[in-house]
């Protein structure tokens, strides 16, 4: 029996499970960082965490509060300059997994973190922008996206392509010359989506315990494809929950 848990906890645990031990992971701040550190503290002790601040192989014993948290430099195998992390480490395809969040995501896994609504020059909401994401999405071996699923975030066509998923469909990544594999999986608070091997369209392949297909459809701004062999995600184990909550607690302590 699992303990009680929130949908955000389920999402973070499911995201952490996507990271294989011994791989190198380029970590965005927020949900991806929490999930990556959970993975390192559970099934993937040799996961190599790479932050765009230049920290290679960071091994924080608490959750970093930003991408430039001192704990990352203190525990890294090497701290390199920001140009170096992008040019020598990300660009040549040395990083196995890019771990990204999104403000908007479309059916082909394209990500928007730039502007919402209106047009670029006069947007409804101005978001922080690209950061490292366009090149993480282009050059990592594969991409894992973690994002809460809602009609606001899961839309048919993103207002601005900040980071390319599968573009407008099959063959687009190759045509653009992007060398990484693109989004392998999207983890949400409702379940798991994976690109259809033929159409590249994000398809619901797993649901978190207690979530229905209808709920997932209702939170998706396009006609959501559902896998024939739709499966259920295992609920968080006691151990996963304990470690995750301990990590979250360190964040609150560090913020004091």
């Amino acid at each position, binding site marked *: 029996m699992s303990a009680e848990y929130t949908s955000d906890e389920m999402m973070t645990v499911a995201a952490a499970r996507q990271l294989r031990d011994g791989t190198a992971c380029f970590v965005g701040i927020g949900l991806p960082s929490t999930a990556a550190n959970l993975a390192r503290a559970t099934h993937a002790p040799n996961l190599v965490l790479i932050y765009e601040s230049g920290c290679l192989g960071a091994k924080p014993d608490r959750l970093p509060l930003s991408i430039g948290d001192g704990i990352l430099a203190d525990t890294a195998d090497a701290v390199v300059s920001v140009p170096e992390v992008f040019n020598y480490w990300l660009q040549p395809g040395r990083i196995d997994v890019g771990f990204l969040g999104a403000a908007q995501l479309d059916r082909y896994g394209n990500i928007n973190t730039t502007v919402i609504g209106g047009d670029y020059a006069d947007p409804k909401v101005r978001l922080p922008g690209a950061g490292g994401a*366009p090149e993480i999405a282009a050059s990592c071996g594969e991409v894992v996206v973690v994002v809460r699923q809602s009609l606001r975030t899961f839309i048919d066509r993103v207002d601005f392509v900040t980071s390319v998923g599968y573009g407008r469909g099959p063959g687009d990544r190759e045509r653009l010359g992007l060398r990484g594999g693109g989004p392998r999986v999207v983890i949400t608070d409702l379940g798991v989506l994976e690109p259809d091997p033929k159409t590249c369209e994000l398809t619901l392949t797993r649901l978190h315990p207690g979530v229905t297909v209808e709920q997932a459809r209702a939170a998706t701004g396009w006609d959501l494809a559902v896998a024939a062999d739709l499966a259920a995600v295992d609920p968080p184990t006691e151990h996963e929950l304990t470690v995750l909550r301990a990590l979250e607690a360190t964040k609150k302590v560090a913020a004091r």
Partner: protein
Amino acid sequence: MAKLVSLAEGVADLVRDGDVVALEGFTHLIPFAAGHEIIRQGRQDLTLVRMTPDVIYDQLIGMGCARRLVFSWGGNPGVGSLHRFRDAVQNSWPVPLELEEHSHAGMANRFVAGASGLPFAVLRGYTGTDLPRHTGNIKTITCPFTGEVLTAVPALRPDVTVVHAQRADRAGNVQMWGITGVQKEAVLAAHRSLVTVEEIVDELEPVPGQVVLPSWAVTAVAEVPAGAHPSYAQGYSVRDNDFYVRWDAVSRDRDTFREWMEQHVLKAEVQA
């Protein structure tokens, strides 16, 4: 050789109305005190450049110092959005803010080109995104050996770059360590540079992970203890994470923001 100056002198001498100004730093070593002095001295019409404009840029923008921002990620790190930045972009308050928007990889390479005396840099970047549709200076370039098409971005050459570091010696040699971001490149790319430091010491004891900027590559150095607060200086201070959280509330409202700036920046005692 770098001149040792007070912060007020350094800003007065090196930062001019209409300049292209980079206050660089990557969460660590953000030159807040220098940014505040720029606000106090009433600089206007600045083109602000930085990979990660955060709270100090929110303050400069909210106080009307900037007419243009060149950047790749503008946010309150670990907290969320920058409300003064948003208000300027969405509502032109207090003055309109033009944007020139890049990715981190693009900005980093633009500084590298500037530091290297090259007019442009080559990278694998931006491809397939909507950035090139809105940012004019992202072009393609063809490899003369393989025919492969890559991306080119122009060098960044700020009029002045301002950074904060842990230490300098009396000759003006600067030492920083921890996360040092793109600061070396930003200083070397600029026509002039001002470095604020936690302390000036007799001798710079070598430290693992250090980046040293020789005195002859820096224009001026000012001793400004805690000059990175609420950011941090590894080995000297820790990040004031509460401040960043509080800033979210302070900066949401124009009046609250102005009052806060009045009290904490404009009326602050200025070092002579």
